[in-house]
């Protein structure tokens, strides 16, 4: 019964006993308030099948103040708990999770037990996590990474929840959370587009124009070099940022269908179309930061902040580095444009990487049967714009997915991000989310791209054969 949501808070050495006691008291309080607030209709809907978890106090018993008679708290639905696995471990998003959980408890009377695991560990261990003792609901990514676990039966389809909330999402999001079997496995909670970022003041100062074609891009890059700027900031120490460039070039040159087919094994890496992507990339590399191999994305973003670099192809999260730089003027100066079009038939797709994060329901949670109604209510809660906005306000740089999100607090950058994604006919999830993990990982695509970057003029077909052989050597996925 020792349920202390997450790790005990506070700088003082925590005495778990007291922490829980006080928290439990608080929970009782908010449970009562929830009853008063008259959310019983929602609760009755979602809590109908709730078998009562052993909670110590009836919800109403600790309701502060009078007036409980006016709206009697719903019987079974206001008790129990839901457990949630979260990879939002760093301070800002973790705070967002806590606020959302508190809001959920306030609205439903259901306590949230959150297990926060640091992002990297969470990702490394997701397979064993889902087979072991996972929480009822857990945060994850959409795309192939979601479908992979759906195919293995490690996540529970949530079509019933989805059918009641799907009107709050665009069809692109619906596609992103649908598994190979046509069932829905997740609620999209946020996303961020990849685009070419730049500083408005730098473009103004040198009178640069936003390039919309490849030729304009190359001309602009040459001008920037003359002006003493690195045209493209680029840092690939962590292996994944380079994938963003591959994605966009492949999407522009060969289109969405080929790209997705390539990443799921339906197309061959030895295809001349892939050679074309590498050749195009090789033309761009002279204008990219030559020190990329030793730079993290943050160090590369710093070059943009310090006005040493002119452009940076990256995700919207680059704004986090601008925020951390401490000057609001820098953040307001940040802008982006869509990667230039290459004059192919696929330009009309306006495709781009816009990874979507989702919340899903596990299959092997040992408390899931008991918590089922609450677990669904929690997913339902995440589908609301008001919930997603709580996280957005923590400055995560990720855009809410719900249609009913109040966008009045969006910055110009956020609004533009929404626009570029809504204009896109095709959205991809980023190479490592669209392909199988063992292919995209450090032994696979990361190392192959590093190999290409180290010598862009090598025998490309030999490299492509290596990639295809690697793909062929992988065991069947399910």
């Amino acid at each position, binding site marked *: 019964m*020792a349920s202390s949501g997450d790790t005990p808070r506070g700088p003082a050495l925590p005495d778990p006993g007291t922490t829980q006691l006080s928290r439990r008291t608080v929970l009782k309080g908010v449970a009562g308030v929830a009853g008063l607030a008259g959310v019983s209709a929602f609760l009755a809907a979602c809590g109908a099948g709730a078998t009562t978890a052993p909670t110590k106090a009836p919800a109403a018993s600790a309701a502060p103040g009078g007036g409980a008679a006016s709206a009697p708290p719903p019987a079974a639905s206001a008790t129990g708990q839901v457990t949630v696995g979260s990879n939002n471990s760093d301070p800002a998003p973790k705070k967002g999770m806590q606020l959302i959980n508190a809001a959920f408890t306030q609205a439903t009377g259901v306590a949230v037990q959150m297990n926060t695991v640091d992002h990297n560990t969470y990702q490394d261990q997701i397979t064993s996590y889902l087979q072991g003792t996972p929480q009822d609901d857990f945060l994850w990514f959409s795309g192939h990474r979601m479908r992979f676990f759906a195919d293995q039966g490690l996540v529970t389809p949530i079509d019933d929840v989805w059918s009641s909330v799907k009107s709050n999402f665009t069809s692109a999001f619906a596609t992103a959370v649908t598994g190979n079997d046509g069932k829905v496995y997740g609620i999209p909670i946020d996303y961020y587009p990849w685009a070419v970022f730049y500083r408005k003041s730098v473009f103004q100062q040198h009178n640069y124009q936003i390039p919309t074609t490849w030729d304009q891009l190359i001309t602009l890059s040459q001008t920037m070099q003359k002006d003493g700027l690195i045209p493209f900031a680029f840092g690939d120490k962590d292996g994944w940022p380079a994938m963003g460039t591959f994605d966009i070039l492949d999407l522009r040159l060969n289109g969405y269908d080929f790209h997705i087919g390539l990443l799921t094994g339906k197309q061959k890496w030895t295809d001349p179309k892939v050679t074309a992507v590498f050749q195009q990339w090789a033309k761009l590399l002279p204008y990219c930061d030559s020190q990329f191999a030793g730079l993290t994305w943050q160090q590369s973003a710093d070059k943009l902040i310090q006005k040493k670099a002119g452009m940076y192809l990256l995700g919207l999260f680059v704004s986090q580095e601008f925020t951390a730089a401490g000057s609001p003027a820098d953040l307001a100066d940040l802008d982006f444009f869509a990667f230039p079009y290459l004059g192919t038939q696929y330009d009309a797709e306006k495709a781009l990487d816009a990874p979507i994060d989702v919340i899903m329901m596990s299959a092997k949670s040992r408390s899931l049967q008991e918590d089922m109604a609450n677990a669904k209510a929690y997913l339902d809660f995440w589908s609301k714009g008001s919930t997603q906005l709580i996280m957005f306000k923590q400055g995560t740089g990720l855009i809410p997915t719900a249609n009913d999100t109040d966008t009045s607090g969006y910055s110009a950058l956020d609004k533009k991000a929404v626009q570029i994604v809504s204009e896109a006919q095709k959205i991809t999830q980023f190479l490592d989310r669209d392909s199988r993990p063992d292919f995209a990982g450090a032994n696979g695509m990361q190392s192959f791209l590093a190999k290409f970057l180290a010598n862009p003029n090598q025998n490309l077909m030999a490299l492509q054969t290596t990639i295809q052989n690697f793909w062929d050597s992988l065991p069947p996925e399910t």
Partner: protein
Amino acid sequence: MTAATMVTGRAHRRIRPQRVLLHAFLIVTAALWLIPILYAFYTALRPVSDTIQHGYVSLPSALNFNNFINVWSLAEIPYYYLNTLIVVVPGVILALFLASLVAFAVSRFSFRFNVALLMMFTAGNLLPPQVIIVPLYWLYLAIPIPEIIKLPFVGMFPSDNGLLYDQYIGIILIHVVFQTGFCTFVLSNYMRTISKELNEAALVDGAGVWTIYRKVILPLCTPALAALATLEFTWIYNDFFWALLLMESGAKRPITSALNNLQGSFFTNYNLLAAGALLAAIPTVIVFLALQRQFVRGLTLGSTKG
């Protein structure tokens, strides 16, 4: 420090070039070892906005302890210190106690399987833990904790799932299992150096086996035990492997995971991380300083006697 006193003490003698060379070498080596730590400390003193705007290799525009203060509460350092101590202290004590029993038996008594037994324990060291992670993971998921092992301090912590998996006791046990081999090896070698006559004298005086272990041998092993305690403390303290594998609750993981928590999905405040890393390293330094005398004695005594 000792070298410096020696130099001043022999100041009247002619300083030989070899000595100058030696000290130059020592100073350079010491500096090489210290630079990363000092650099981390310097980074931790600077606000992240400063390093973003000016780079890490630059003069500071501001120096303060804000990162240390922030990381203390943001990363919940005290909470994770406690998590680690819950594993390390019982782990070290249990491992040393069990190892000293085995070492006592195999080194002070001769019986048929005495060498074989020691070899078995020592051979355990050669087994890389990674080899058994998969069966171990499933074993931990399958083994229920008997009520009796639910020690008071274990019960204090959340989400008792009734399994060995995801429990402090599970981590403590696996550390004891893997560390006992090495401790047995060191302690049995050390105990061999204690003369047999002590045993015989104690026997003549009417001491039983337990009394010989407790009152004669164990006190003589203090240096070795202290040296081992320092090593074991550091090893178990720094371990992330078992906690990662056999624990699922982020809130139960050791101090090393507090540092990982500071790394975001994308953005990481490296200055804050540096402050956290320095704080996380403090306990091992304290333990070393506390046991330093015994540690050095333990190492050298063994060598000269052998």
